[in-house]
């Protein structure tokens, strides 16, 4: 119970910090908004990748769908700004979840690395179609409507939207992992055939998990498109080489298959990335590639996995560190 109290205290502290941040450090509000986006990315990826064992490289597809759905509704519906934005975010979330629901049964039946490549292909198909289709602005992109207010209010407004979405995602995911759903998708990760033999409707769980992921990613699309103000199909909406890989990387960096791992990974990664952007202008993406290789090759268990092993070592020096593929789950310990 003590762990649970500590968890809640940390969540409340982060929440207070998140609310206060734009007033404490107004100069970096946009970067902080992207920090919440990164946390959301890592958390939603980890539902499939970490907890369910389906390593998707194409979850950015859902984000892009959300970006475009919201921007198109804002452009074509003729509603007032806030109403259109609200409807757009809802539409983005529903479209993304709907696409996941339709594609899910076929795509999620593919396993292992074939699944990874298939999802990678899906994201690139979407990017190519978005950059060729005239209705959505083709390769020249799409501008979002002008915010009716001051520029700093605009940044703060979208900051809070993204903060709320990230917080909502975290709480939803936390709730789901502590319920039957969490056990079910972990069973699928550990041995899918056995889970199915035990009477689990694996396809339903898999598709549902993908839909949850897609729902939050789609919802995040609208605020991000409006925060940036201009939607480029390859560099913002369906940015496979940046957002698409980053979401995988952040979860791996923090420790995939854990609740807090993606959050920690996203924070560390985002700060590193901003530092690269500031000091290595032009070469930041090269450095990013190098960073990916280093993280994956040397820290495959992530920060939490590494910390867990470091903590386990002094207790029993004779026992070698547990060589589990996934990091230990603090959230499970919290329940006991």
């Amino acid at each position, binding site marked *: 119970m003590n762990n649970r109290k500590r968890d809640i205290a940390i969540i409340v502290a982060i929440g207070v910090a998140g609310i206060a941040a734009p007033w404490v450090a107004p100069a970096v509000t946009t970067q902080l908004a992207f920090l919440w986006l990164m946390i959301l990315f890592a958390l939603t990826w980890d539902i499939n990748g970490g907890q369910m064992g389906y390593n998707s490289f194409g979850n950015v597809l859902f984000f892009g769908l959300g970006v475009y759905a919201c921007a198109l509704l804002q452009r074509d519906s003729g509603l007032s700004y806030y109403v259109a934005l609200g409807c757009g975010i809802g539409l983005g979330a529903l479209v993304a979840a709907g696409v996941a629901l339709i594609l899910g049964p076929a*795509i999620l039946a593919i396993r292992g690395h074939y699944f990874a490549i298939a999802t990678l292909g899906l994201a690139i198909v979407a990017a190519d179609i978005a950059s060729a289709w005239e209705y959505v602005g083709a390769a020249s992109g799409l501008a979002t409507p002008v915010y009716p207010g001051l520029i700093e209010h605009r940044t703060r407004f979208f900051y809070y939207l993204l903060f709320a979405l990230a917080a909502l995602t975290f709480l939803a995911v936390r709730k789901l992992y502590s319920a039957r759903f969490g056990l079910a998708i972990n069973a699928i990760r550990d041995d899918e055939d056995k889970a199915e033999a035990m009477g689990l409707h694996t396809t339903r769980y898999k598709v549902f998990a993908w839909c949850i992921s897609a729902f939050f990613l789609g919802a995040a699309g609208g605020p991000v498109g409006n925060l940036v103000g201009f939607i480029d199909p390859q560099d913002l909406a369906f940015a496979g080489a940046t957002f698409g890989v980053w979401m995988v990387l952040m979860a791996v960096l923090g420790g995939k298959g854990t609740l807090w791992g993606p959050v920690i990974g996203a924070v560390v990664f985002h700060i590193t990335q901003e530092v690269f952007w500031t000091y290595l202008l032009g070469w930041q993406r090269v450095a990013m590639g190098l960073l990916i290789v280093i993280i994956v090759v040397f820290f495959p268990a992530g920060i939490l996995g590494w910390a867990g092993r470091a903590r386990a070592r002094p207790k029993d020096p004779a026992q070698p560190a547990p060589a589990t593929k996934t990091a230990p789950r603090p959230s499970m310990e919290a329940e006991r």
Partner: protein
Amino acid sequence: MSNLSVLFDAPILLVQLIVSGILVGAIFALVAYGMALLWGVMNIINIAQGEFVMIGGYIVFFLARAGVSPIFGIPIAAVVMYGFGLALYRSVIWRIIDQDMFISILATFGISILLQQLGNQLFGSDIRTLPSHLPSLFLAGGMVTVPEIKIVGFVAALAVGAALVVFLRYTRLGQAIRATAQNARAARVLGIDTDRVYAATFALNCAICGAAGGLVAMTWFIQPYLGLTYTLRSFMIVIVAGLGNLPGVILAGTGLGVVEQAAGFILGAEYQTAFVFLLLVVILVGRNMVLARQRRYLK
């Protein structure tokens, strides 16, 4: 879609598409064979495959600019890429061989991004192509145009493929590579240094990609961001053909070339890559459905 009716009115255009598809497909097959080699021997899916092609292309391009004919440029690119592959193996790849497949995909994805961005910084994002001084052949009364350089590229791709088969079949190292692919543990027991075999296989794959890249620069164009399309094309060809099946790889490669040319013509060039990747997804889903009916899975 209006081009579809054009195709029915003038079937000779279809011949044109098939010929250009086959000519370019041989190069796809070459890259795919390298990927199959790596996959079969080391159990690694190399996402950076296309980037190796890109680097090979740039080597041949800059050599040609410095006055070295591509006939010599391509072997030089292959040798340079062999060394590059050895260096990459010794620094990164050996660490990920016995890891989870996911780790190897993600690590090679990182290498792919690294090389692609490095290419962008060093060579610029312009589309480059080697000027060829060879004429074009006009067949069937001028309706079918075949640039001779593409025929040269096709023949060279087949030659490299044939050399590879001979190498794998008859040389000591080639036999060691095949033995390791069959059973790495047994190969180790019999005194084969599998680590060196892995290094040689990886470097060999890089050399193949380097040569293929030179052919791509000669017959098509190169650009820092073209890598991923080649990677996924190779992946698709390997899935369709299976590992270690050279005739299958050539057939699937040329088939993909033809389908791609036809799709580019019918749907418009801007949808061509989208079509390729959609085809990849459809093939994966379709193959999986067939296997699932037999209670087997793509693993």
